[in-house]
């Protein structure tokens, strides 16, 4: 979550669910919390019971809206305009928390003369290169710094290698040397971050919000008033979001928008405040912390890049500046400990800690690029581990066609998911595009163990690791991933044990001797201990502060170090909540260092006193920081401490630098580095939108990742000819009774009975316009696919007036897929999408796109293909359509 990382320093929710009860106002935006996180929602209701105002901002009226004080329906894909409007309101009406903003943010920092804003360049920032569609971020840096402010590093988007950089700030702000930054404490200097922010959002007026979002200005102002009235010394507001925000071609900047508001209002690091990212899978936070992602190593250390990170020294200088402040300054210790954990005695100072055993990345190796490479026969094999891309990924047809090109496919799941059976019952078999007898893919289906059949940790939405204990043995051939990959590693290593090839050294030298438990299976606690880390003498580390750059410590994920402090599995602690305060520090373990509210130094004023008695949390008692949480700051550093000249790393943090991972110790209203698509959020339309961007000539995100290929036809957008063929906005979402692509829900009779059938939600006016009948059928069409769904005509969806015209929105739950094994099946909403990705994180845009909808069922067989082709033809779609990224009229 680089939106959070490039604002505060870590890519995790900044607070915890139980603390919502202390909020005076809760804004839920891009999330249907009551239905998608129902048990967590109890804490919103607790807050409401205590008098908090609850605001739900979302295209659809849901059960979250039903219990909120107000529901604000807005057009899917317009949230940045709404958030920018709030920022403008806060600045124009001087509602920001001045002491907080001055002390804890980079508002007073001066930017360079070369910096040009979207206001000057019609929707582009300075540094844009139209030939590569990437930014050189040098001009976004602070005044007074050389180059882009990094030692030896390159601009965030300056070359093709920089393209994958955006995500590497999950726990450590971007590298930057802050010592020479010029500041203006009066905030009046025209190049101060504060004034730049003011100018950037000056046109995001209530009237503009109404025009872009379809929200009446009066309703928008009510939100502004509620949020500002419930922020400040005495009160705090929390912002809650989920994938309704992240899955956009400009998704990272949605989160940045909330980050700026929360910094301006002084809500970060304080009880009842913060930004709560709600994650949708049991361990999705864990799977980025210990990443099964191509561009990261454990603990958000970047994967080395070809050329840029040729040597160990170049890598190290590339990921951190030796002069920078804060705990990211010690990155060398974290990397060396990781390499020691993986290659033990074979990682030595002389061989750069076996750095060359790491493969190099060069550009995007994400899942969508990989699917296209499958189609091109560049990929032979594929492991699917509890994931169902034939249903769950955007552009399902591309996923299935890609898999039909593989030599071998291994599916490890609880149920016979559609991705395992596409070769005999996928939609392309029915349409005649594929024939089972022609598909050469060898498929292994290996049954997986359930959560009750293995021990291990999930990291839930508030960064908390919780151990689940094995209850029974897995049945039949079922195996955990732990057992399977341990055995696979043994078998592969045995096959290459005597090889003389240099490429096999990383396998031969890999530490892969794990103790077995009583059942003869690899012991998960031993793996957690390796993750936690050890001293050379075998003692477990108490935390990452003990990690050393000299090879005397080993540890697999520095941010998780401490989960085995004192030799105890801290994640398995279960002291009942009723016997603890609401922070519940003795239940599970949260990274980092079991801190529950991040940046909680900011809960006290610069002198270390609570901002108010009502909002007291951590405070300085003269010798230590004390309070109900573990302080997210050096424990004994006085508020008055000023770092000596030349200090670096944690020693350089002043007593009032609460953002301890950031190179300058401050929260970033403006991100001088770390993001590839701009230092401030600007409203861009979704890649496919029936609306012309009212704010800039630049229609959509100019850096979005596009794939100009015949397999990925994109639609005309805005006022381009043919855009009117797809006049409606659609968005996808989850239901309470199903889970993502259905692999864990559509095979359960209970849940299938509760939500048996795929449906679409449309408003009564929309139904009249298209002749749709409640309980009847509708066909939804895009340039990729036509799918059918039962019609639900409901006032939960309202037509919005946007830019003088009425925009209808269609809501689609995305849980169903075409196959024969599940209890319930149906067309998949994800088949509708094309590929347009956020360039920071390569996430696809599946929360806002354009479609047509017609009454009746879709055609079958070849007629279905003809229907989609007819739409493409009518809209004049070629391989070039929608792939043009720079669309503003004025040359920058």
């Amino acid at each position: 979550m680089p939106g959070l990382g490039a604002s505060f320093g870590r890519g995790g929710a900044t607070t915890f669910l139980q603390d919502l009860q202390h909020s005076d106002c809760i804004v839920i935006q891009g999330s249907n919390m009551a239905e998608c996180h129902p048990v967590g929602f109890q804490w919103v209701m607790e807050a409401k019971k205590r008098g908090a105002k609850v605001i739900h901002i979302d295209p659809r009226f849901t059960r979250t809206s039903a219990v909120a004080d107000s529901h604000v329906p807005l057009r899917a894909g317009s949230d940045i305009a709404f958030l920018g409007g709030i920022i403008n309101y806060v600045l124009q009406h001087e509602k920001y928390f001045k002491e907080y903003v001055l002390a804890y943010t980079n508002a007073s920092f001066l930017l360079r003369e070369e910096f040009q804003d979207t206001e000057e360049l019609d929707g582009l920032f300075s540094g844009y290169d139209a030939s590569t569609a990437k930014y050189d971020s040098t001009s976004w840096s602070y005044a007074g710094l050389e180059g882009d402010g990094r030692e030896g590093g390159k601009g965030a988007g300056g070359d093709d290698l920089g393209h994958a950089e955006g995500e590497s700030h999950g726990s450590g702000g971007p590298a930057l040397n802050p010592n020479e930054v010029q500041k203006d404490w009066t905030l009046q200097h025209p190049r101060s971050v504060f004034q730049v922010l003011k100018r950037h959002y000056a046109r995001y007026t209530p009237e503009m919000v109404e025009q872009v979002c379809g929200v009446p200005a009066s309703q928008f102002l009510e939100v502004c008033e509620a949020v500002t009235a419930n922020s400040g010394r005495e009160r705090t507001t929390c912002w809650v979001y989920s994938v309704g925000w992240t899955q956009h071609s400009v998704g990272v900047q949605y989160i940045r928008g909330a980050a700026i508001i929360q910094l301006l209002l002084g809500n970060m690091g304080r009880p009842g405040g913060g930004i709560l990212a709600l994650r949708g899978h049991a361990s999705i936070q864990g799977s980025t912390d210990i990443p099964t992602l191509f561009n990261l190593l454990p603990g958000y250390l970047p994967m080395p890049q070809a050329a840029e990170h040729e040597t160990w020294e170049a890598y190290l200088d590339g990921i951190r500046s030796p002069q920078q402040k804060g705990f990211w300054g010690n990155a060398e210790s974290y990397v060396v400990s990781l390499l020691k954990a993986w290659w033990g005695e074979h990682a030595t100072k002389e061989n750069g800690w076996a750095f060359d055993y790491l493969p190099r990345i060069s550009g995007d190796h994400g899942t969508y690029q990989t699917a296209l490479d499958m189609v091109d026969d560049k990929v032979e094999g594929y492991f699917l581990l509890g994931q169902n891309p034939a249903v769950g990924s955007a552009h399902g047809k591309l996923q299935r066609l890609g898999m039909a090109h593989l030599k071998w496919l291994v599916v490890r799941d609880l149920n016979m998911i559609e991705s395992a059976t596409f070769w005999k019952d996928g939609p392309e078999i029915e349409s005649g595009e594929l024939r089972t007898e022609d598909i050469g893919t060898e498929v292994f289906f290996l049954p997986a163990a359930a959560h009750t059949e293995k021990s291990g940790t999930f990291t839930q939405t508030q960064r908390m690791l919780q151990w689940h204990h094995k209850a029974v043995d897995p049945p039949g051939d079922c195996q955990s991933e732990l057992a399977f990959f341990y055995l696979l590693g043994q078998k592969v290593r045995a096959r290459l044990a005597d090889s003389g090839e240099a490429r096999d050294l990383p396998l031969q030298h890999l530490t892969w001797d794990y103790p077995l438990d009583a059942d003869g299976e690899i012991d998960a606690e031993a793996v957690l201990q390796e993750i936690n880390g050890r001293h050379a003498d075998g003692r477990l580390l108490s935390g990452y502060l003990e990690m050393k750059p000299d090879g005397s410590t080993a540890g697999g994920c520095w941010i998780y170090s401490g989960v085995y402090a004192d030799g105890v599995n801290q994640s398995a602690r279960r002291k009942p909540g009723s016997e603890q305060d609401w922070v519940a520090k003795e239940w599970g373990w949260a990274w980092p260092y079991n801190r529950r509210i991040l940046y909680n130094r900011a809960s006290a004023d610069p002198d270390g006193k609570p901002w108010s008695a009502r909002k007291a949390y951590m405070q300085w008692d003269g010798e230590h920081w004390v309070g109900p949480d573990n302080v997210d700051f050096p424990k004994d550093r006085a508020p008055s401490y000023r770092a000596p000249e030349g200090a670096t790393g944690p020693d350089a943090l002043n007593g009032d630098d609460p953002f301890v991972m950031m190179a300058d110790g401050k929260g970033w209203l403006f991100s001088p580095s770390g993001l590839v698509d701009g230092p401030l959020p600007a409203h861009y339309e979704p890649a496919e939108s029936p609306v012309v961007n009212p704010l800039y000539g630049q229609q959509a995100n100019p850096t979005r990742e596009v794939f100009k290929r015949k397999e990925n036809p994109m639609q005309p957008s805005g006022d381009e000819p043919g855009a009117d063929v797809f006049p409606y906005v659609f968005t996808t979402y989850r239901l309470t009774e199903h889970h993502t692509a259905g692999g864990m829900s559509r095979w359960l009779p209970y849940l299938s009975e509760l939500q048996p059938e795929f449906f679409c939600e449309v408003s009564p006016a929309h139904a009249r316009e298209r002749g749709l009948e409640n309980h009847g059928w509708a066909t939804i069409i895009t340039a990729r696919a036509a799918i059918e769904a039962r019609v639900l005509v409901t006032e939960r969806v309202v037509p919005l007036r946007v830019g003088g015209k009425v925009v209808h929105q269609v809501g689609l739950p995305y849980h169903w897929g075409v196959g024969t094994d599940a209890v319930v099946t149906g067309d998949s909403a994800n088949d509708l999408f094309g590929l347009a990705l956020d360039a920071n994180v390569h996430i696809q845009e599946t929360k806002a796109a354009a479609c047509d909808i017609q009454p009746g069922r879709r055609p079958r067989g070849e007629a279905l293909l003809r229907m989609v082709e007819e739409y493409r033809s009518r809209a004049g779609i070629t391989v070039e359509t929608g792939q043009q990224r720079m669309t503003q009229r004025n040359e920058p």
Partner: protein
Amino acid sequence: MSLGKSFLGWPVLRQLTGEDRTGRGPAAQSARSAGLLPRTKTADRVVDSVCPYCAVGCGQKVYVKDERVIQIEGDPASPVSRGRLCPKGSASEQLVNSPGRVTTVRYRRPFATDWEDLDLETATDMIADRVVETRARTWQDLDHKGQKVRRTLGFASLGGATLDNEENYLIKKLFTALGAVQIENQARI
């Protein structure tokens, strides 16, 4: 003679003479239902767990009898969930014991029209062979620009957000040692 057979055991008399005057408790209970016990009472053991669906991380109590999961309940001790589970979490016993769950290895040969059986050991050996062969065939010491990359783009992996941290750790470790970089999960999807 048991109460049930005698008129003295009639519910209406019990209601009028006992403490349950509204007839909504013991007075209305039959002998059979009085003898019923919840499954959770007869479990051999109760194991602490965590719900596998969304990321709220609700505490679960897993009830086991005769080495089989017989019930899953919310854990009242959890400070986050306070004993509650949503419809999915409440259905998780069926996730484990689902009638449709596949518990044996299935294998589809290239161009075949149906599955066949395969034993687990053979399947794992075949997969290890495929990994080794594909890796050797697709290995790159240098990329097309002549830059050192030491990797394979010949195979990929997708998944992780439903897995344990320890599992993701081993997957990342093994793939990285293999030089395989195309590892992805739902965190983006």
